[in-house]
């Protein structure tokens, strides 16, 4: 590996200063499961890695029934999966978090890293888009919120500017009668990368008879994890059921722009999008049904 310097600041300000000084030649180091592999292969030419795991704000999990969920960008997947609040209120997020890599990757990999790696197949990115998540970004000019749906701009490319650091991922508190799910297709059960994936979030009317809102996001079928804007239109006002799911699946298939690669063909992925969107919607609706008024609001 080409030599680089290492710093482990203990505040966001220190980290941003270090990153801003080096610009393109510095990167944050969270779990290291992508960046260290990429540096070793010569994909980046870095002078400095800034370890962000000693910054308290980046390794915290905060939940408040009013404010929602704030996940430090450098919390490991293993810690997220064991967290009772996430298990209770954000199972659709854990669907994706729990399938990234095997046990040893889970012990290190982070949501901030998954997002900044900006892989088209990033399972957690699609799941976070479906949940309507935002990235809290700190930079030389201060802090800002970036919708996760517009965070990734091309394979491996993000909306971050030199000196920027993703501090946390933020999600609204779960609405009553809402639910989310993420599913993917992989030939292996574990340690695999999505051939295609779909995340869905739905909100139902109090009686559960119609969709009041929905979001669908796809992975591995476009240059970035993809927010399917038209799927919400296809579902609004419809009754949960196979007809509505088929309409949403069709909208998702129209939005998808899959390619042929070593993991699958464009045609297979196009087909999978339909199957996976329906599966994600069925699971999300089932969770919404279980999530009665009030139960989603307790910490």
């Amino acid at each position, binding site marked *: *590996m*080409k*030599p*680089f*310097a*290492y710093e*482990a600041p203990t505040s966001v300000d220190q980290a941003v200063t270090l990153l801003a000084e080096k610009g393109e030649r510095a990167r944050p*180091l969270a*779990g*290291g*499961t992508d960046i*260290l*592999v990429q*540096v*070793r*292969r010569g994909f980046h030419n870095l*002078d400095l*890695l800034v*370890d962000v*795991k000693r910054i308290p704000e980046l390794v915290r999990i905060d939940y408040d029934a009013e404010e929602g969920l704030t996940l430090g960008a450098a919390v*490991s997947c*293993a810690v997220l999966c064991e967290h009772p609040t996430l298990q209770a209120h954000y199972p659709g997020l854990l669907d994706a978090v729990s399938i990234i*890599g*095997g*046990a*040893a*990757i*889970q*012990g*290190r990999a982070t949501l901030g890293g998954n997002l900044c790696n900006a892989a088209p197949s990033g399972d957690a990115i699609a799941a976070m888009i479906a949940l309507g998540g935002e990235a809290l970004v700190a930079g030389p000019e201060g802090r800002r919120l970036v919708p996760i749906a517009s965070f990734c701009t091309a394979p491996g490319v993000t909306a971050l500017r030199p000196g920027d650091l993703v501090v946390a991922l933020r999600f609204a508190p779960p609405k009553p009668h809402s639910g989310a799910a993420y599913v993917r297709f992989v030939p*292996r*059960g*574990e*340690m695999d990368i999505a051939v295609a994936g779909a995340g869905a979030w739905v909100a139902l009317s109090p009686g559960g008879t119609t969709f009041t809102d929905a979001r669908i996001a796809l992975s591995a079928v476009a240059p970035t994890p993809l927010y399917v804007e038209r799927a919400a239109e296809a579902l609004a006002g419809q009754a949960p059921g196979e007809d509505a799911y088929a309409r949403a699946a069709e909208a998702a298939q129209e939005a998808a722009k899959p390619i042929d690669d070593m993991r699958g063909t464009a045609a297979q992925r196009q087909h999978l999008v339909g199957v996976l969107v329906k599966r994600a919607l069925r699971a999300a609706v089932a969770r919404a049904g279980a999530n009665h008024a009030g139960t989603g609001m307790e910490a």
Partner: protein
Amino acid sequence: MTHKQIVTATINGELTEFLCEPHQSLLSCLRDVLSLTGAKEGCNDGNCGACSVILDGRLVNSCLVLGVEIEGREVTTVEGLAGWQALTPLQEAFVAYDALQCGYCTPGMLMAAKSLLDRHPNPTDGEIRAWLAGNLCRCTGYDKIIRAVRAVVPGTAVAPKTAEAPETADVLQTVLETASVDQVKEA
């Protein structure tokens, strides 16, 4: 620009100080600096699990950790499992169930299995298989490894199939008992 750094960490229960380059992996620090050659380099990119160690109670691929990151942290490697005379029950089960052939994946398998059992003392076969999915073995076909791990789960052990298996353990015991400490250290 880059120079060696002093790192202080608890490794296998002992407070340890070592020097390493900032870009040196924990795996390289363990093997090349500290002469703890149990953890193996396979793929060096987080796919094979041969370098698995436990860092602050979490299983990690030591090839994907920088040595400098472990300042103040605790690391357990395969060398930290057994004492001079006695293997752990998990290691004994690997011997009794022939859960290794070439042995290259074994240190990583043992650390992965240990981390599973530390967290989930009663895993199902499916949970064992899923947990070990990040540890590749090209010899055993995995079944013997799964059986060995299951052997240390209370109430679920299946007796080793081969009559030789207990003898293998006996032979190892004899070696451990008769070899001088120096010989064991050299080996």
